[in-house]
């Protein structure tokens, strides 16, 4: 089997929506409307994104269509594959179970298995992540692979490579509002950087989240260690570490060129510290000092 990419220009025809359902999801003030939803998918979508559903006018709209039964090869249990290309100046994203194009404020998402609600939910989630990566940049923000927690109106964001302990930090922090254990939206506001809850599925129950944005108190790069400690990270290194945790960083160049100064600004203003922690809640004592 080999990969199948949509032919150039194949997204240019008139959309053929799967259904008439629609839902608008708000992430940190960015509203994305998903339309053309087939009946089998409407209720699961409403359930998954319940805390984030809004009536606000959308900043972006994506229409669901039936797609090819297969796109990229994907072995069971293998890492998710996402490949981005350009088609007539518009970005195309292809995975094993969908192909999508965004053009201005409109998107088309072609599902490989529209009768399979779980498979379609996964495709929509990946489309939302991809779109949000660019929509956030237009608002001086970016999405960040990190765990986010908030207390007393302030957000603490923990990042690091897979396995660094993001979900552990969340599980060790009862009493804190959970922004996400996977992906946080960071946006520069008039009074500094803010962190927003995202609806994306991590290991933490989606229903326990609320929709909110909080003043960013600090960024912490997670390192597991035998004892808890915090140490400042030089800014250049901090920006490099943070860039490595920004999804969809590789393509296209204009995304990277917008992202790099924003990440620098966020790291400079919020500050980045290395948090060495030993998987127990005592790390909050040294953060709060």
């Amino acid at each position, binding site marked *: 089997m080999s990969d199948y990419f949509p032919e150039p220009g194949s997204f240019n025809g008139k959309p053929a929506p799967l259904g008439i359902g629609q839902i608008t999801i708000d992430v940190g003030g960015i509203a994305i409307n998903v339309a053309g939803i087939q009946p089998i998918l409407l209720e699961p979508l409403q359930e998954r994104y319940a805390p984030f559903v809004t009536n606000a006018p959308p900043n972006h709209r994506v229409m669901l269509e039936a797609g090819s039964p297969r796109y990229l090869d994907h072995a069971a249990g293998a890492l998710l594959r996402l490949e981005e290309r350009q088609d007539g100046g518009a970005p195309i994203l292809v995975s094993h179970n969908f192909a999508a194009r965004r053009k201005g404020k409109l998107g088309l998402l072609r599902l490989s298995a529209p009768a399979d609600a779980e498979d379609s939910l996964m495709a929509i989630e990946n489309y939302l992540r991809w779109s949000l990566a660019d929509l956030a940049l237009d608002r001086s923000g970016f999405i960040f692979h990190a765990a986010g927690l908030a207390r007393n109106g302030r957000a603490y964001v923990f990042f690091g490579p897979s396995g660094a302990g993001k979900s552990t930090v969340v599980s060790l922090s009862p009493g804190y509002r959970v922004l996400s254990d996977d992906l946080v939206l960071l946006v520069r506001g008039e009074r500094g950087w803010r962190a927003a809850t995202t609806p994306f599925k991590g290991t933490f129950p989606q229903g326990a989240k609320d929709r909110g944005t909080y003043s960013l108190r600090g960024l912490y790069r997670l390192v597991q260690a035998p004892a808890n400690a915090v140490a400042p990270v*030089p*800014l*250049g*290194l901090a*920006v*490099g*570490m943070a*860039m*490595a945790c920004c999804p969809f*960083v*590789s*393509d296209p*160049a204009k995304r*990277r*060129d917008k992202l*790099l*100064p924003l990440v*620098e600004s966020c790291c400079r203003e919020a500050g980045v510290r290395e948090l060495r922690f030993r998987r127990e809640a005592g790390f909050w004592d040294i953060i709060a000092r």
Partner: protein
Amino acid sequence: MFELKKFRRNPDVSWRLIEGQAVLVHNREGEIEVLNEVGSYLWEHAGEPLGELARNISRDFDVSEDEARRDAETFYEDLAKSGALQPVPEQ
């Protein structure tokens, strides 16, 4: 010997000098590199005469000019292999 003048920064690498450290983001793979102070200086001045760069490094970083030149050559070779530098077409 490595012909430094035949290389230049790859425009597909986004980069930014932050408090003396160059942060490089490679195209496609999205690989990130953070260079130290000397590496950042060499990156910023890639394509300039190596003798001059070695003299400046020798002056500012307490290292002999020969050693600075050798290190700079190795550094540029590594960057060329990683794709961060690319060949300049022959005139």
